[in-house]
Every structure is written in C-alpha cells, then in structure tokens.
C-alpha cells in the first residue's frame, strides 16, 4: 500500500516515493489520561473513560476520562479560587513570565507534541510539524508579552479581567485551538476551564503536563475531557463568566441560546463556506497551488477552507485542467509519512458526513473528479474531490462539508463574483487571486468575510486576528483585537 504511482508529463517515466515515516519510538503515551483540575490529575467522578483512536489505522491510543457535571463544577470552583486568590492579584509582569515559560516548554517538547497530534487527529506530520505546533507555541509567546501592556490596546479605558472562562474547542487543530483559547485568556488575567474535542484530547493532556511543569499556580488552567454533555455543563455553569467556543454553527447557536438572559459573555468561531476567487489575470500556477492549499490543507477540516472556487470564465478550462493534473500528484495516506499531502479523516462520523455530501453532489447533477490514488485499507480516508458544473443553489455549494471536497463555479464580471461570494450565510474567509492591486482592494473591501487572503491562502499568525462575519460567529482570536474577547472595559 505504500507504493504510490506518480503520473508525470512523460508517460514513460513513472516513479514512486519511498516511505519516510516519522519515528514514534520516543513517545511514552500513558494508558489512561485523567482530568486536570486544580493542578492535579484526578479520576473522573463517574469512573468512566472513553477510547481515543488513531484515525489512520483505527488503533486505540489511550483511554480518556469522561467528565460529568460534578467534575466540571470542581474545575470551575478551582478556577474561581485561583482567579480570586492568585491570578487576578498577581502583578501582570509575573503573569506574563508564566505564559512565556509555557511557550518555552512547549518548544522543548514540540517533537512529541507534533507526533501525538498526527496520531490522534490524522493530520499529516508535515503540517503538525510546520504549522500546528510552532503556531501554538508562538501564540503563547505572543500573548505572554501583552499581559503587562493591556492599556495600550484599549486607549482611555480601564481594563479588567472577566473571571472564569469556559472554552470549548474542536478537533481540527487540537493543540493550536487550545493555544488560541488559553493564551489570550491568561494574558488578560482570567482563569480557564477548557474542554478539548472527544476525538482529539491527547495534545491537550500533554499541554496539561506542560502547564503543571511550568509551575503555573494550581487551578489557573483546568482541562476536562468528555463529550457534548461535558461542554454543556461548562456552558450552563452559573459561575462561568464567559464562553469561548470554536466549532459548528449549529452548536454555536445552541450555546448562544443557552446563555441568553445571563451575564455571560460569549465569542463564537463557527463554520464557513469560503470563496476562493481566481481572476483571469491571476498567476495561474500560483493560483492552482492556492486552490490545493485552500481546500486540501488538513484534509479540508478547516473552518476557513476555500471550499467554493470561483474561476473567471476565460481561464476556467485551463485552471481546471491544471488543478486535476496537480491533484494527481497528491499523496493520500499515512499521516506519519513525511511525503503525505492528505492524511486521514478525523473520524468515522466525519467520513460518513463527507461521503453523504459527495453522494448529494452527484445526485444534484454536478460532475465529480477524484484522482486515482490507493487508499489504505484500514483507517478513514477520502480522496481529494472536486465538483464542476455546480450551481449556486446546490447543497454542496451552500453547506459546510468540512472535508477535501471543492465545488467549482465560474463567473464573468467582478460584480457577479462579489454577489455570488457574499451569497452565503457564512462569512469567515475568502481568497482573491489577481495581479491587479486595485482589483484586489476593490474586491477585498466588498467581500463580507473576516479574513481575506490575496494571492495566498490558509495563512495564520499569532499577531493576525481571525474570526468571521455573519453566521461564522463573532469575536476575534489572535492579534491585538483578540484581547477584546477577554476583558471588561470601563471609563477611566
């Protein structure tokens, strides 16, 4: 199954990649992971554990504690105590030093973090190594420095912490999302109860070990693992001051509704169906790389994935042809292999969802293309998939699929593509490919989306605010603007 044939432009020349597996020998995963509450690893009060598996081969990795209401209550109480007695009264510059220290230990353990992330989430090792883990470390490093400089971010205001924040994160960037949530919350003086996703809890538990090692005062960060019921217990806990959620729009709406009428603050980073627009004057080879990166990065499990492609008519055939050729070269398979471009789908459930949409797409009359590729027998995989002949009204062009599935539409004029791109309840991100600066600025200012990538796609940075318009949620994470989600401002 390791052999993958690459079709090259010369039909006589066919060559294979030799496997280049990342070693896992240095890993010492525990059999069982407990809850991290008040600086200790404690057993769940129900005594219940669930398995987390490796989606690339369906093998069990470890058992994970399932927290119930009682455990969440313990975690919130620990966080409250830590907030009142330690964290909110500590000088800001000392707070900063703890966060810097966490970043440093993460860097030291980054090899371990990246391998565990790949095992637990199914994402390629190349991506864990080059994107997830370094960005997560950098996020802590960036926000650490803000702790004693908050008044510069909010001119003419007095800045106060909120208190205990409940944070619920998804499975597509497990460690990175934990960093996006915890780092700004700590820098602004809040304490945290975090729930990782049930399919990807391992790196969060390693982060708990790192936090313990850093000497962060007990209870400042608590990590409780579990399913939706655990998340609901956090959302509904009366002593939580703020909920930060990243996940699906449906669950986001449930949370917004659940906290209606309370004094809880909320920020939501939800789904997307982002437009990636290729104008006729674009640098086509770069644009094709951008399309590939936009939709196949992390198996398409990206809320801001460029899942709706719009190509200007004169170049549509050419772009689609090049795109198909490029797709032939994508390596689908073992995420631990450094050659792999497209790893495993995160879970059986998500694979079923993706396959359901592929079926719908065919039924709606769109034309499907998948490159010939061998898929491992065990594990959850989906070949890179594109649909042409897609109508704006097709379900596959409207709903978020959260997999390596791209819909392709064409357009003639700038106004037309702006309308089509904005005709979505979502508004998370968009891509624009053009060599005309004036055109880029015109289109980027008219697209209703929180992040615009011009002549690039899927770039992230701790200094760069991220978050959506419309039903993609509200609030920003990252950068100076990400601080606002975690503070209370008052008149000086």
């Amino acid at each position: 199954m390791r052999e993958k044939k690459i079709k090259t432009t010369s039909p006589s020349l066919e060559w294979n990649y030799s496997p280049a597996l990342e070693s896992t020998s240095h890993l010492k995963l525990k059999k069982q992971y407990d809850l991290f509450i008040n600086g200790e690893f404690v057993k769940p009060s129900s005594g219940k554990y669930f398995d987390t598996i490796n989606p690339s081969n369906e093998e069990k990795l470890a058992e994970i504690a399932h927290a119930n209401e009682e455990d969440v209550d313990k975690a919130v109480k620990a966080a409250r105590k830590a907030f009142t007695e330690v964290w909110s009264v500590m000088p800001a510059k000392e707070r900063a030093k703890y966060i810097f220290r966490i970043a440093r230990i993460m860097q030291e353990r980054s090899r371990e973090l990246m391998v565990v992330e790949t095992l637990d989430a199914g994402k390629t090792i190349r991506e864990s190594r080059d994107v997830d883990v370094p960005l997560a470390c950098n996020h802590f490093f960036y926000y650490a420095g803000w702790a004693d400089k908050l008044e510069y971010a909010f001119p003419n205001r007095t800045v106060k912490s909120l208190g205990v924040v409940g944070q619920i994160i998804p499975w597509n960037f497990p460690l990175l999302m934990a960093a996006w949530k915890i780092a700004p919350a700590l820098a602004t003086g809040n304490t945290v109860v975090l729930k990782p996703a049930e399919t990807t809890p391992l790196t969060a538990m390693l982060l708990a070990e790192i936090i313990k090692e850093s000497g962060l005062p007990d209870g400042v960060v608590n990590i409780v693992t579990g399913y939706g019921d655990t998340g609901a217990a956090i959302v509904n806990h009366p002593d939580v001051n703020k909920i930060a959620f990243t996940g699906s729009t449906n669950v986001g709406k449930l949370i917004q509704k659940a906290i209606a009428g309370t004094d809880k603050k909320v920020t939501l980073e939800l789904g997307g169906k982002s437009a990636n627009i290729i104008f006729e004057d674009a640098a086509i080879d770069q644009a094709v790389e951008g399309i590939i990166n936009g939709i196949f990065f992390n198996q398409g499990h990206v809320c801001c994935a460029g899942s709706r492609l719009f190509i200007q008519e004169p170049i549509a055939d050419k772009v689609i042809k090049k795109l198909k050729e490029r797709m032939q070269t994508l390596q689908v398979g073992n995420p631990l292999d450094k050659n792999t471009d497209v790893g495993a789908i995160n879970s059986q459930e998500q694979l079923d969802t993706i396959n359901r949409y592929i079926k719908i797409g065919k039924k709606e009359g769109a034309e499907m293309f998948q490159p010939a590729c061998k898929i491992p027998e065990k594990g959850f995989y989906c070949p890179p998939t594109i649909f042409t002949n897609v109508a704006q009204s097709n379900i596959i062009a409207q709903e978020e699929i959260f997999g390596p599935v791209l819909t392709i539409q064409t357009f003639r004029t700038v106004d037309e593509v702006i309308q089509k791109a904005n005709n979505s309840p979502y508004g998370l991100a968009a891509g624009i490919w053009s060599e005309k600066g004036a055109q880029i600025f015109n289109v980027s200012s008219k697209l209703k989306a929180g992040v615009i990538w011009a002549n690039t796609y899927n770039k992230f940075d701790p200094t760069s605010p991220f978050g959506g318009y419309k039903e993609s949620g509200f609030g920003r994470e990252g950068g100076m603007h990400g601080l606002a989600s975690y503070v209370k401002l008052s008149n000086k």
Partner: protein
Amino acid sequence: MRLEILKTYKLYIGGQFPRTESGRFYTPKNKKGAPLGNMCLASRKDVKNAVSSARKAFGGWSEKTAFNRSQILYRIAEMLEGRRDQFIAELVKQGSTLKQAGEEVNLSIDRIVYYAGWCDKYLQVFSSVNPVSSSHFNFSLQEPVGVVGVIAPQDTSLIGLVSAILPIIAGGNTCLVLASENIPLCSITFAEVLNSSDVPGGVVNILTGNEKELIETFASHMDINSVLYGGASKENIQLIQELAVVNVKRVHYYPMNWSNEDGQSVYLINDFQEIKTTWHPIENIGGSSSVY
C-alpha cells in the same frame, strides 16, 4: 383667537414619512394625563419595510468616505441646533422642566458633534498592521456590521435616541429604530432633522409603537445583523438574545444612564464593527535589503 395647528406624527422609513401600513395609532399621555398626540402604532410589516430600506441604503452609506460621513453628521448637529426650541417644547410637553429640556437638547447636540468628529478617526486608532512571521503584509481594519435594529432607551425621548443612533451611523451602518413608547415626540421630529441634514434616506428609519409587540421581529429578522437593546426589561433582552441565534446576531445591551459621560464613547462605535484582516505576499526573492 387663532387655532393652533397640531402636528401629525408619522413614521420615517426610507427617507419618507409614511403612516403605518396597519392604519393603527396610540395616544401616549404625559404624567398629568394629557394626551401627547396620536402616534403611529407601527406593525411588523413596518419593521420589515424599514429593514429593506436600511439594507438598500447600506451600500451607499458604508462606502461614503469617512470625511463625508463626518460632515453629514456635523450637519445633523447644525440642524438640531436650529430647532432647539421645538425640541425643548416637546420635552416640556412630555414632562421635563424647561431647564432639564434645555440641558438634554444641548447634550444631544454636543454628542452628535462628538461622533461627527470620530467618523474619520476610529479607523486610525483601532486598526492595526500585524507583524506576521511570514513574508506577508497583513493588516486589520474595522468594517460596519450592516443593518442594526435599535430598541431606543425608553426613559428619555431625545438623548437616548441620539446616543444609540449616532455611534451606529458614524461607523457606516444603517439602522431602524423603535422610539421610546411613552415619550416618542422627539423621535419623529428628530427624523425631520435627519431628513434635512443630507443623511441619505434609509440610513436611519424611525418607528413608533409597542416594544413588546415588535421586539420579536427585530430579534428574528434574517436581514438584521445586530441589535442594540436600550430598554430596561430583563425579560425582553433574554427574548432578543434567544431569537437572535437564527442568524447569529450580535446583540448589545446597555443598561446605563445615557445622560452622563458614559453615554458616549468610541467603543460604542466599535461594538457595531467587524474586524477584517487582509493578507498579501511580499515578494522576497533576491534577498537584498534596504541599506541606508
């Protein structure tokens, strides 16, 4: 003896002064029980019409230059200053003393000037260039959230209304406003001020009517992006927050006294803004640096 000409108060939608399509009216009374006038009792359909007008006006208003918006807002202050006496008379009729009324009008005018000045500055103060680690130019700036539904503060007739509308339109949004139910006179007279101040029709739409009857439409309408609740009912804010989930509306609730200094702030403009972040590669081929 001359017979006084009484004013007919109508709604303000899309730059026009229509009666409510429902044909209904109500008669609020002052503290002494004297009727203030016959006000339109706006219906859900009026709310929907106001939303369409606000949406239609959004493109033009949000794309005006900041400097132009600033000038138009300043013009509102000029028009209000010119009509001081009329507003003072209405406030007195609704129960204020002459002194209170004068102060409320002064504060309102000054508040408009305050926001007029912010139009072309908040972007400079709150935008950022972000020093990303890759070879990209990256910046974040504010953009208006869209159409805002406003339930105006109910305990004042003018200052609450002005304090709610101004930060919203200063930031390039358009809005529809449900005026104070019991003391609504200044709202429609303020619409006349807006109408003569170069504010394009539809940017601000003003309705009079019953809060309880209309808030569900404000909260659940799919083309309203954000709601400002200026009322004081805990029950109503909960209802708004629950219904707002249909399209993930941004709901803002300000239980505060608009007559003091807290009632104006650039952070109120920010509450009705989205942050947009744009990336573009910086060519980095030869490795030459700018030696100086």
